[in-house]
């Protein structure tokens, strides 16, 4: 499917937000820090469940690199939160404010989507964190079957490195690890 083709995300669908272990509250390990819901630069990155199941959320993480040190991310350091789109859009707010969930496919990650809202709206961030705490046991997931995830990541990395070597003389390809599997 083309990365340019954007779909409408229905309200009854689900999206995954990945958060590293260090991004959870020190006082309450069931509540993420509000900092994890900072919608920058263009929105909060999520994966649309229709095109990416829970296992693949972690494969995508493990197949991508840290921008700072160029090393692959360790998917075991993350947990994934599963939000229903309507739950995000219908957060009760003091004043009306736009919250939208839009499909934003990226090369190698067609499921990529964005939750868009004003980055200065602390009310949304504090309420998202508290939704997670209240529903922790139902919506927060650790990597399911890590050996299988690792296997898929290795396959992807290998394929990507081979593609990089093969295309080296043809054009200027993307560096391995900068794209992710769907």
């Amino acid at each position: 499917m083309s990365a340019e083709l954007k779909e409408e995300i229905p309200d009854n669908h689900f999206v995954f937000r990945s958060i590293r272990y260090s991004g959870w509250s020190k006082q309450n390990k069931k509540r993420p820090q509000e900092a994890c819901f900072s919608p920058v630069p263009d929105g909060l990155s999520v994966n649309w469940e229709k095109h990416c199941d829970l296992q693949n959320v972690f494969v995508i993480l493990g197949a991508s690199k840290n921008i700072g040190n160029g090393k692959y991310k360790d998917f075991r350091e993350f947990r994934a939160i599963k939000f229903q789109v309507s739950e995000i859009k219908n957060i009760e707010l003091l004043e009306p404010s736009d919250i939208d969930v839009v499909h934003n496919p990226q090369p190698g990650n067609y499921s990529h989507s964005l939750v868009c809202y004003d980055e200065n709206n602390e009310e949304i961030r504090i309420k998202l964190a508290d939704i997670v705490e209240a529903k922790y046991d139902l919506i927060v997931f650790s990597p399911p079957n890590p050996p299988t995830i690792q296997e898929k990541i290795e396959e992807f990395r290998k394929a990507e490195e081979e593609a990089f070597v093969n295309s080296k003389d043809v054009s200027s390809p993307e560096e391995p690890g900068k794209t992710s599997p769907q």
Partner: protein
Amino acid sequence: METTNDITNFKVGVETKRGCLADSPQVIRASEFDFYRSETKYFDQLRYKPVAQITVTKSQLVIDVDGKSIELDAKLEKIAKEIEESKSILELNDDWDSFDAKKIDKEVWFMAVSLLSKYAHYILAEFSTVIQPPEINPVPNGTIDLSWRTKNGRFLMNVKGKESNTLASYYGDLYNNEQPIKDKLINDSIIKHLAYWMRNLA
């Protein structure tokens, strides 16, 4: 974190012609004394005069960062500890979250902890209330979050960078959206109704 001692209080009372105290003398804080002294009319009306500068010592906690220091009343020890621990935020490099996060500028951190200290002191002085320490967290856009959850309420204040028009934005309520408070701070002057609301963070 260092501890210092300071003389901060005055004993005041009604002075008679003989120079004795007719009523029970009261001890007031130096900051309050300055207020009484400046409000001459009020001062005369009460006939209260300073009769002694008493040597009550008060511990203070001092946190130093790069030549700048923050002093906290000993009663705010938990907040001082949280500020001290949050210095580690300054060691984060760009991409600290693996998703291209910005490094936290020292000025932003200092603004955040100064603001925290200022409100905590004001609430202590005005309402004799010691608020709980917040979690001090870095945010990927280079700002700092001060985050509270207490028995009575929740509160989030985001302290911005230099390039922002506002110093901070905040939201709080007493859970279930009760008594919400939401606004922006343009500068670090104390907003009295915000400080009053923040008593809920004790």
